[in-house]
């Protein structure tokens, strides 16, 4: 497996997945590099029947889980980074629609970060990376039925979070 080709083909999607999972650009970049390292080291063991991207998502999800476990042991909480704030629209742009759209994006990103890890990863792989239920099951090492319930429950929880946030901001 060629290093340059692997990175060129998968860097964008892997970075996007990790960034949406953790909301931290620096952490996403670090874990993405580590995921490529693990993939290249394990390339001989890779089963060619699966998609490379699915395999990389699986490695990345495991790395992220390990990272948060280590943080939890050190007593640090999983914190969404402040970078999401940078996405707020420049008021100088003037267009009210643009500002509202940016605010909605920000709310969705923040709400995603408050979902449990399993639901978040399933939703992100489904709605941002167009993976099938089978591929998500492979990436997250769980049965398809579990993927379905995680996505269903994740959407429900996301709706609750968005409504709660709307009520809080309107109050």
């Amino acid at each position, binding site marked *: 497996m060629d290093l340059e080709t692997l990175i060129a083909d998968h860097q964008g999607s892997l970075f996007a997945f990790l960034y949406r999972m953790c909301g931290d650009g620096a952490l996403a970049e670090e874990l*993405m590099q580590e995921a490529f390292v693990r993939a290249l080291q394990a390339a001989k063991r890779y089963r060619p029947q699966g998609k490379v991207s699915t395999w990389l998502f699986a490695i990345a999800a495991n790395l992220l889980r390990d990272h948060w476990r280590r943080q939890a042991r050190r007593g640090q909480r999983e914190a969404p980074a402040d970078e999401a704030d940078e996405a707020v629209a420049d008021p100088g742009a003037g267009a009210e629609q643009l500002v509202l759209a940016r605010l909605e994006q920000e709310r969705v990103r923040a709400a995603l970060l408050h979902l449990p890890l399993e639901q978040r990863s399933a939703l992100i792989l489904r709605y941002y990376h167009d993976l099938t239920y089978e591929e998500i099951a492979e990436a997250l090492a769980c049965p398809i039925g579990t993927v379905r319930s995680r996505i269903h429950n994740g959407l429900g929880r996301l709706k609750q979070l968005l409504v709660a946030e709307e009520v809080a901001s309107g109050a």
Partner: protein
Amino acid sequence: MHEVEAMLQRERQAGLPEAPDLRYTAAAVRRRLEGESRRRSPGLDAGRQPNGDWPLVLAGGGTLLGAVVLALLWGLPPVWLWAIPAVGLALCPIFLRKGA
């Protein structure tokens, strides 16, 4: 539920911060791979032989064998009285090497 799905779609279309430069990532991954391979063969790093433990194991084994043979030849009973310290002595270099 459909409303939430539509919001996810809109958020997706909004995009994200750009991924790092490809060449930068490739260089960083290569550095990490080199670091990993050095960590896996520390003998090469410290100017040691790649299989540096083997001479120590052989020396330890030889010392042990010699001690047991001498104890038997000299008929110094009981044999274990000599053999057990000899084992400890033989393993010393290995423990020292591991601790280094």
